[in-house]
């Protein structure tokens, strides 16, 4: 640490101050906005300003007129299953990459490409592949004898959420693969060799040595990805707009629909607070249990 003389003691804080002021300024308005408007009836189509104080009614309306529970269910499903699948697929690929063969660097550089794409574009990639006519995935499924519904994979209630999730899995499995690979590489060879001498092979080696040592890295990627999945919006916007029905609606899309398509600002404000509360809860659990022995 650099030392600061008495006169300079405030200096480091002055360096941080602009970032705090700017970020605080950027979030204070939305915060006040959603808190105050969550108690008002306000439809933007009928009035440019809040219309009537209605107490807690907006909070009840979130459940009564928007499919909040269904959206919550979809969001939790996507976040939990998505993180789980991407983690283990990514881990598998990472383990393959650690077999130091020629050309691995090229593989790794190519593998990361899906991650660089804007999620909206990923949505289009998959929307085209899901088409009933001309869709590559539809054709592949039919070719191996798996029936595809006439309305396509996105047009059926039971499959729409899974189809959205598949696009996300495609995009972000390489994220896990490349970062877990870096984590695995940082494990010292001596530890691995020592374990081998003691007879640890295959699954045992992975379970007792590699996995615990790579866990610190894993926590970070799981945290980032779980939160991003929890906030999923772009893919839903392009692929299904939450449909059919409410089968693929996520919390973020539900909020967008109520606020910016139906213009129910009061209800959307109440919903925003509920979502922020949920997100902070999840994030705090991660920080408390996942990052507890982190150095700052």
């Amino acid at each position: 640490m650099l030392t600061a003389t008495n006169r300079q003691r405030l200096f480091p804080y002055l360096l941080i101050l602009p970032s705090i002021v700017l970020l605080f300024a950027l979030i204070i308005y939305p915060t006040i906005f959603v808190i105050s408007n969550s108690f008002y009836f306000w439809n933007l189509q009928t009035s440019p300003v809040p219309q009537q104080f209605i107490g807690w009614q907006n909070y009840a309306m979130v459940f009564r007129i928007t499919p909040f529970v269904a959206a919550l269910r979809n969001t939790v499903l996507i976040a939990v299953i998505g993180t789980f699948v991407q983690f283990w697929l990514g881990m598998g690929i990472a383990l393959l990459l650690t077999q130091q063969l020629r050309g691995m660097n090229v593989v790794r550089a190519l593998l990361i490409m899906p991650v660089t794409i804007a999620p909206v574009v990923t949505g289009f990639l998959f929307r085209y592949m899901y088409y009933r006519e001309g869709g590559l995935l539809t054709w592949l499924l039919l070719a191996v004898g798996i029936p595809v519904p006439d309305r396509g994979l996105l047009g059926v209630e039971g499959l729409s959420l899974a189809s959205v999730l598949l696009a996300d899995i495609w995009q972000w499995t390489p994220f896990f693969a490349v970062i877990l690979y870096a984590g695995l590489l940082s494990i010292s060879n001596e530890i691995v060799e020592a374990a081998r001498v003691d007879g640890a092979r295959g699954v045992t080696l992975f379970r007792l040595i590699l996995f615990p040592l790579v866990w610190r890295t894993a926590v970070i990627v799981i945290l980032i990805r779980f939160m991003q999945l929890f906030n999923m919006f772009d893919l839903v916007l392009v692929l299904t707009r939450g449909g059919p029905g409410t089968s693929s609606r996520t919390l973020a899309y539900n909020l967008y629909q109520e606020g910016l398509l139906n213009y129910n600002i009061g209800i959307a404000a109440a919903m925003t607070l509920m979502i922020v509360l949920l997100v902070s809860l999840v994030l705090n659990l991660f920080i408390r249990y996942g990052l507890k022995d982190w150095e700052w």
Partner: protein
Amino acid sequence: MKLTWYTKLLIYGALLLILLFFIGPIAWFLALALRPQSSIFEMPPEFLFRPQLKAFVYTFVNPGVNLPQLRNSLIIGISATLLNLPIAIPAAYALSRYRIRAKKALMLWYLSLLMAPPVVYLIPYFILMTRLHLRGTYFSMVLILQTLTVPFSIWLLKSFIDEVPLEVEEAAQIDGANWYTQLVRVTLPLTLPGIIVTSMFAFVFSWNNVVFPLVLSRQETTTLPLGTLNYFATAGITWNYIAATSVAAMLPPMLIFLALERYVVRGLTFGAVKG
């Protein structure tokens, strides 16, 4: 451990399938941009066709519907990056170099902003920017993007500054250099690579962001990734144009990631994993 030739073959085979799965859809979309319109909905899909550049010409040359969007994306991405640097660099420096009260809480606050759902900002800012007559301006989008770029850059930059040995600065301090000389003459040059890497990732994040322009842009200021959505709204989806626009939107982030290969892991984890 020596691998036998058939294990090697098996690994290469598996990797080939994996690459096919992850690169295939991208190649397929490039093909969509190049294929004649008549073959878009062919079943079975046509793998062989005479490629044509019509869609690229329409979107970027004549009439070049999406060319202004390319310019907008560059303006917004570069401005958001440039605006975030003078705020993030000093903060990252202080957090890396000095004992600061509540450092952990502060870092977690930045992190929580990064992890917050961007949609929650949409409605308040949609209304605020409308009232201020700023909706549709580059400024409105660049400003809101700072909720992402500033915390991101602080995290990533801190990890780079952490690696610059302290001795150099201590020596400068003993030599009587003031903080300004220390920062500008000693620390900044040493962290320049980190600053460049951070800027490029911040640019990619801004470039790929669609949520903010979705509600804050107007037709003249909309961005390239969002330009794809516009084709969607018009009657009859013109997939050639969507694909051509998408390919152009994909290219800059891809090139940046290829150029920053060594730093990809670090960038994607905000500096938490060194890679």
